């Protein structure tokens, strides 16, 4: 089985994130880069399928030079090879451009499954997997908390607000995962040493056959005009119990869509 996993390098989840004053994009130099947390679950799920069914895992990432650290981490966890798309012209690419680039790389590489995290911790659009599936013309199985492969089909449990749906599709297919799906492994020291010998294909946009007009900040469909820091947390709602505290609490939870 051939599996691709799209992983993104993001600023450390716990670090304070800053926007650049010059072009309103995320300041990626300001914090340590780490693998997007959900993408670790995607890599883990691919490794588990490989352990059960054999095959090969390719990591795909689009990002600046230092995203190479994230590629190495995925290889240290056990993936076999990687493609790293790195080009200054990609800076500022929006979700459409990102999905265009990833789909172009995936086209012609013949995969049974393409794994994604269901959301990145920095931009949090949660759309790239669906966009890539659409561009590839394959089924999209999103928000998976369980994945099973049987012959030519793949079955997932798709998490919803109320429970889960069971969704089946023919392969090839795109699968995005949620954190319930597994417990990602740490790369072992042996894995780190083995990763040194694994192939990493570094591509520019030209190598990848991408059209410059569809990439970068200039091509983005939306523009960030202005931004401000998040205001400090407001005081919470205080419910005084006058015999109807339980009802009021339930009403509050309902307005917040918790129940």
């Amino acid at each position, binding site marked *: 089985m051939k599996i691709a996993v799209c992983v993104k390098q993001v600023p450390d989840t716990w670090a304070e994130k800053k926007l650049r004053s010059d072009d309103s994009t995320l300041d990626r130099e300001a914090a340590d880069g780490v693998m997007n947390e959900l993408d670790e679950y995607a890599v883990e799920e691919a490794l588990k399928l490989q352990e059960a069914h054999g095959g090969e895992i390719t990591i795909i990432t689009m990002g600046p030079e230092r995203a190479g650290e994230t590629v190495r981490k995925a290889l240290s966890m056990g993936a076999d090879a990687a493609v790293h798309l790195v080009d200054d012209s990609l800076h500022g690419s929006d979700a459409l451009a990102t999905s265009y680039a990833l789909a172009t790389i995936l086209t012609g590489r013949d995969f049974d499954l393409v794994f994604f995290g269901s959301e990145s911790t920095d931009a949090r659009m949660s759309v790239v997997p669906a966009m890539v599936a659409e561009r590839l013309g394959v089924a999209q199985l999103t928000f998976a908390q369980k994945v099973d492969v049987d012959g030519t089909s793949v079955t997932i449990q798709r998490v919803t607000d109320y429970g889960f749906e069971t969704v089946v599709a023919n392969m090839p297919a795109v699968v995005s995962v949620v954190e319930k799906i597994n417990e990602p492994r*740490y790369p072992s020291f042996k894995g780190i040493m083995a990763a040194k010998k694994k192939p990493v294909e570094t591509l520019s946009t030209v190598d990848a056959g991408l059209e410059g007009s569809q990439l970068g900040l200039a091509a983005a469909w939306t523009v960030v005009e202005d931004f401000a820091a998040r205001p400090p947390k407001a005081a919470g709602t205080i419910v005084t119990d006058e015999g109807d505290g339980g009802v009021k609490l339930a009403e509050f939870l309902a307005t917040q869509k918790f129940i």
Partner: protein
Amino acid sequence: MTIAWQTSGVLRRLPTPEAASLLDLTHEVATKELRPRADEAEAAAYFPREIFTMLGELGLMSLPYAEQFGGGDQPYEVSLQVLEELSRAWMSVAVGVSVHNLACFPLANFGTDDQQRQWLPDLLGGGLLGAYCLSEPESGSDAAALSTRAVDAGDDYLVSGTKAWITHGGVADFYNLMVRTGDEGAKGISCLLVNADTSGLTAAAPEHKMGGNSSPTAQIHLVDARVSKSRRIAAEGAGFTVALAALDAGRLGIAACAVGLAQAALDAAVQYSGVRVQFGRPIRDLQGVSFMLADMATSIEAARALYLEAARRKDAGLNFTSIAAMAKLMATDSAMKVTTDAIQVFGGAGYTRDFPVERFFREAKVLQIVEGTNQVQRMVIGRSLGRG
């Protein structure tokens, strides 16, 4: 080659890309698995065996040893910085890793080929935990005065006596015992590698200590414990040489643990002083406080530089006995001072158990005592002066 590695305010230069990946892995495991458990476990004197199992599986328990036997083949320059990052998250665990490495040292450096082939893969495999038994109730700094006896009984020794202050006593899978096979003095000592299940070997209840409570320390009692002579490492009478060589390397481990602990105290003090407001501004902006932080940071960098120089000399095959003693002396005294000052930066809050700095302070103290008190380090350094 120099690779820059920077995380959470510590900048390191590392010799290889894989060393950087190794430090990344260590930092991740330290922040996700060690630090969140440390406060509660230390308060409960809980020994986290499962953490050592995990570190073993990841390959972090045997980094300085040969790859052919399951080690990581890393220079001390790298393995000690891994230890430092572990200690920054949880000193007791880092000390445990250091003691385990100390316990592997005799076999890895003085064992015969046969002995190494037979036992080293198990020791380095990550599943087992080791202990190193030199000290006794009546023989601490004067270690060569030890009196645990190994009596010749044909193919075996019968070992009797008491070892004191043994880290991992009662929880270790194997023990390096320094025992007397000959006359009084350093030349009558031999080193035996024994399994924990050897009959006649028992552990006393753990000591009640001031700190480092997740690392059990206990006496080991030996009553006619039968140990095959095939388990003797190096010749009869060479045991003290083995013990001291192991300690030279072990002291570097303690130095690295001390720097990691001091760094944790500084991290906490920098964070707290940035949010605690007095006189209308964060106390970090008061010069008197910021100078204290500056001195702490300087002392940590100096200690780090010294243990790394010692490590690089060891890696290059140069004599490092004296500089290792200097590194242990300086790093542990520095950790004592830095952790004391960290409490000062926290004010009254620092004196309570609501914040970890009082724990760091209690933990720093033991590092001035173990693997040779700091007076003994000065003896080692003093002896080397005026020679060569």
